[in-house]
Every structure is written in structure tokens, then in C-alpha cells.
């Protein structure tokens, strides 16, 4: 009999415990899988439940108070007066402007992100895949303010973009664009177009990454099967790739949409002087001391997101999950 076989016969069938507190705990947790979940989930649930949801709830509560116009003090009686103020023309403008900007940024980033995400998910291998991740994430490593100020220089009248247009003898195109109402302005850095471009740039990674993850999970043979059954590439995209990538697109759009709606720095540095929701919140809770109105403004993005998700679900965006 070989040495291995002889040793096997003398080995114990049940091994001794590891001993010590951790050994005993491992055995105990293994025998009580529910307790394992309890131990694992208690800290994050406390964090989410009390500190996160709790403060959100406190914020919502504030929005049902109102400010006393004479004393400037907060009147802690339940009222819908603050929400009524949201419907003043100047505040409706802010809401519409912000939601429209967020929607445009989301649609544009979905269109720009898709080919990049598709390439990364279906074609990139090895070092090209690493280059993709690096390329998408690298902008996130530098400060957001640095990037925004860099863009201010790019978009300025003396900036690089103007210079490129001049070199290409296309200055008239830029001028024609800036002459348009609403989207135009004195230069790109003080126009809505500039704000849009910077939002698009800054939130792009948050659209690409979930999209790429979703596309990666679409099996290649489904695309072959679709072609095999007679679908031209356009039909395969519409009937197979898009529906299966939809959860990723929605996840990405939640990021770009809510990040754009909540941001107050980009429109302050680049764009017109007209306010976005984030700036309104900042102004009302700060200098104006109108916490209830600031709180009411923060409820707007939450409600808009809720409607957006409800609509997406009704359209079957999550059927492939």
C-alpha cells in the first residue's frame, strides 16, 4: 500500500475545532445562518436607517414648515404654504430649467456613452479593457473644481475651443450658435450650452460604467441568434441589445439625472446667472435663512426621480432584470 493510502486511513474523520473565541464564533455563526445576516447587516442598517434616512426625513419635515415673513423665524406649524411658494413663477422657472437641463444631459450622455460602453463590453480585451477603465475613471481622480475651472478656460472667449474653431475657419459656426436665443450668449462659458457641455463631461463616467456592466451581461449568442432569425443590425439593436441593456441605461440615467439636478457649482461657474435648483437650495438655506423653502426645493428632484422610475418600470425597462 502506498504511503498516501496508509496516511489516509489514520487521518481523523472529524477535525478538531480551531479553538479560541473566533473558532467558537465561526462554528456558532455557521450553525445559525440567520444570526450571521443579523450581525452583517446591523451596522449598515443603523447607518442608513438613522443617519441617512433619518436626516432625509428631518429635511422633508422642514418643508412642511414655513418662514414668518416679518420675523424671519421658522414657524413650526404644519402648512403647505412653502410648497405653494414653489409654484411662484420665478421658482417654477428654476424647476423647469433644472429638470430640462438634467433630461438633456441624461439623453446626450446615453447617446455618447453607448458606443464606448458597447466597445468595452463586446470588443475590448486585456490591456484595451484596462485602458478603457483607466480612461473612464481617470477624470474622477482629479478634483471636480479643477475640472470645472479647466472647462471655463476651454470655453472662454480666448479659450482653446475658440482658437480651434478659428484655425479651422469655422468661427462663423460658433458665432451663429451663440447668436441663438436661450442656448447662446456672449461666449460658451456664459451660456447654457457651456453648462450643458460641462455637465455632460463631468457625469459621463456614471453613465458609461453601468451601461458597460449591463452590456457585458448580454450573451453574444443572442446577437447571433437575432441575426440568424433574419434581423438586420438595426433590428437586433432595437429588439435585443437595447431591451437587455435597459436596466444599465436606467441605472446610468439615475446617476446623471440626479447629479445634474442636485449640482450647484457647475451652473455657478459656467453658464448664465440664472439659478438651478441646487443653487436655489444653497441660497435659501444660507443667506436667506429660508430652510423650509430650501427643503421644499430638495423634494422636487426626489419626486421627479420617483415619477421617472415609475414610468421606466411601466415601459418595461426592468423586464430583463
Amino acid at each position, binding site marked *: 500500500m502506498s504511503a498516501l493510502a496508509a496516511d489516509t486511513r489514520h487521518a481523523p474523520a472529524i477535525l478538531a475545532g480551531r479553538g479560541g473565541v473566533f473558532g467558537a464564533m465561526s462554528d456558532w455563526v455557521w450553525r445559525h445562518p440567520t444570526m450571521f445576516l443579523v450581525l452583517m447587516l446591523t451596522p449598515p442598517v443603523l447607518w442608513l436607517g438613522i443617519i441617512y434616512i433619518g436626516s432625509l426625513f428631518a429635511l422633508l419635515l422642514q418643508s412642511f414648515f414655513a418662514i414668518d415673513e416679518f420675523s424671519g423665524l421658522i414657524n413650526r406649524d404644519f402648512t403647505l404654504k412653502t410648497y405653494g411658494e414653489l409654484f411662484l413663477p420665478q421658482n417654477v422657472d428654476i424647476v423647469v430649467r433644472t429638470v430640462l437641463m438634467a433630461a438633456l444631459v441624461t439623453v446626450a450622455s446615453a447617446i455618447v456613452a453607448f458606443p464606448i460602453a458597447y466597445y468595452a463590453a463586446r470588443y475590448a480585451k486585456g490591456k484595451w479593457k484596462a485602458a478603457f477603465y483607466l480612461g473612464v475613471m481617470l477624470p474622477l481622480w482629479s478634483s471636480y473644481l479643477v475640472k470645472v475651472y479647466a472647462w471655463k478656460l476651454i470655453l472662454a472667449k480666448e479659450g482653446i475651443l475658440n482658437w480651434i474653431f478659428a484655425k479651422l475657419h469655422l468661427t462663423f459656426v460658433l458665432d451663429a450658435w451663440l447668436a441663438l436665443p436661450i442656448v447662446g450668449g456672449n461666449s460658451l462659458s456664459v451660456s447654457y450650452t457651456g453648462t450643458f457641455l460641462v455637465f455632460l463631461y463631468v457625469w459621463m463616467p456614471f453613465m458609461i460604467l453601468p451601461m458597460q456592466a449591463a452590456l457585458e451581461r448580454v*450573451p453574444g449568442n443572442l446577437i*447571433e*441568434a437575432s*441575426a*440568424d432569425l433574419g434581423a438586420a443590425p438595426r433590428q437586433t439593436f432595437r429588439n435585443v441589445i437595447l431591451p*437587455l441593456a435597459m436596466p444599465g441605461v436606467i441605472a446610468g440615467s439615475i446617476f446623471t439625472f440626479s447629479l445634474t439636478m442636485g449640482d450647484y457649482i457647475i451652473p455657478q461657474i459656467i453658464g448664465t446667472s440664472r439659478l438651478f435648483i441646487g443653487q436655489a437650495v444653497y441660497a435659501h438655506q444660507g443667506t436667506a435663512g429660508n430652510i423650509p423653502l430650501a427643503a421644499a426645493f430638495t423634494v422636487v428632484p426626489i419626486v421627479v426621480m420617483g415619477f421617472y422610475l415609475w414610468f421606466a418600470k411601466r415601459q418595461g425597462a426592468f*423586464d430583463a432584470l
Partner: protein
Amino acid sequence: MTPAVSFTKVSRHFGSVRAVDAVDLDIVEGEFFAMLGPSGSGKTTCLRLIAGFEQPTSGRIEIFGENAVGVPPYRRNVNTVFQDYALFPHLNVADNVAYGLMVKGVGREERSRAADEALALVKLPGYGARKPGQLSGGQRQRVALARALVNKPRVLLLDEPLGALDLKLREQMQEELKSLQKQLGITFVFVTHDQGEALSMADRVAVFNDGRIMQIGSPQEIYRRPATRFVADFVGSSNILPPDFMQRYAGQRRWGSLRPEHIRILAQTAGDGVPARVAALNYLGAGTRVSLDAEGLRLHAVVDSGGALPSPGDDVVLTFNRDHVHVMDEPA
């Protein structure tokens, strides 16, 4: 008659790998054609060349006499049943089956009628509303089949469609596929690595190895008269007899093959025949496979399990009828 599929010197190289190497092939309309070979032998690449998922590096492919090189899959009237079925997870069974008709612009009512008909054909009536995730492997297989057949393809390609099913289901599906093919008269091209499956289902079999076709013929021809050592070994595990052995016991210096069931084992230590020693027994049910060492070769014989069986270590004598020895084309 124009062949359904015709390959002329078709090659498909992936870098330095010759997945398919100068293959000539004619598949007759209406036949059940099997491509048999081990994994990596080029049989699946050949199937993908017919479907249009791959383009040949060189050579000519014709489908019913028309050039297919450079034609995308969606313009070929050829449909595939994929190995892992490739059903669309976000569509229900009826929409999966009707997919081909939907992309061709067939109206909703006609589509659902055709889908119901196809589901009835594969014995899954009333399953239209379910999602693929709610079906068993065998049911998914049938949906994949219905989804391909609903388009009325000229050629149906099946890529190891029974590989993931358990034995009993596989045998049942083999019978059903065979009768379905007879009933519809569509040309079936079937890829498999299971020689039993190929022999029992196909009208003709092509045996692949290293990107080349070793032999094309009816199952009987392939089984009884293998052209090369590879075919003899791969199809039904024949004993391969080298030229020296053949010269001594069969009278000619060529490579030969001998089926295990054609060897008789005599329980005697000397006499007319090949002296051998029993190495091992494997019980197979009706038969028992006896492994034997003889003349430096490992031979296998299959004997009736009900008869007297030798024991490992016994010295025996092997005899066989010279007419059962098949002399192969391969040079000595």
C-alpha cells in the same frame, strides 16, 4: 441536382490555427447530415460558416447554388438551433418563436398563429405566455427548435442541440428530431461529438479531425469501413491493428481495424490464434468489455455478459474471422 450546401476548398484560419482547412463538402437537399468529430475538429466552425457567423479565409460556399461568401446571416434562409438555445430572456415563448416573423414584418395575428402552430409541432402547445427562464432544459430545446422552424428555412443547422440534456430525454429528442426531419423534408445539418448520436440519426456522416474531413459516408460505411485510423478509433472504438500484426494474423501488411464484438476469447493458454492476457473487465449491461494485452497492443473485446467470463490475469487465446478485419486506406 444542386446540393443544399456546397463547400469548395473552404478554409477558415484564426491566426495560425487552421480551424477549417481546405474542406470540400456537398450536402444533399432533404438529407439528415451529421458532422462528427472531437472538440476543436472544425465541425462547429463549418456550421458557423453555413450560418454566416464566420466568413471563410478562402474557398467558395454555395447554398442551393447561390454564392454565400460575404452574405450576412440575416440574408440567408438558414436557421440555427444553438447549443445553449440562445432564447431571448426578455421575451416570452410566443414572442421568441415569432421573432423571425416579427423582424420580417409579418402582422401580429399571423405571427401568433404561426407561433402556436410551431409550438404544437414541437409538442409545447399553450406554453406561449411563459418566459424562457420558467422552462426546463428539454422545453427550451423545443422552443429553440420551434423558433428556427417557424421561418421555414431551407437548411436547419443544429449545434450539439442535445448536449445539455440527460440520457433519457436525449434519446427521446433524437427520435423526435428524426421524425420531424422526415415529416418536414428540410435539410438538417447536425453537429455532434457523440458518435452514437451521429450514427443513429444521420443519413450521412462527415467525420472531422484537425479541420479536415476524414471520411464522408453513410453510418454503415463509416462504422464498417473506416477510412483512417482516426475514424476507426473515434467511431465506436475499434481495435486498430498495426501492419506487423496484420501481416502475422491477417495476411497483409496494411493498417487494419477490428470491431470489439468480432473478437472471440477462448479460455485456453495455447492454440490457433493470438495469445493474450486479460487486463480488466468493464460491465456494460448486456455486454462486458474485456481489455486484453496481446503482442504489445491493448485490444478490447465485447462479450455476452451472460456467458462464461474470464478473470483479470487469465491467459487466453483470441480468434477472429479474417473477413471481419477491415483493411484501411492509410499507407503502412
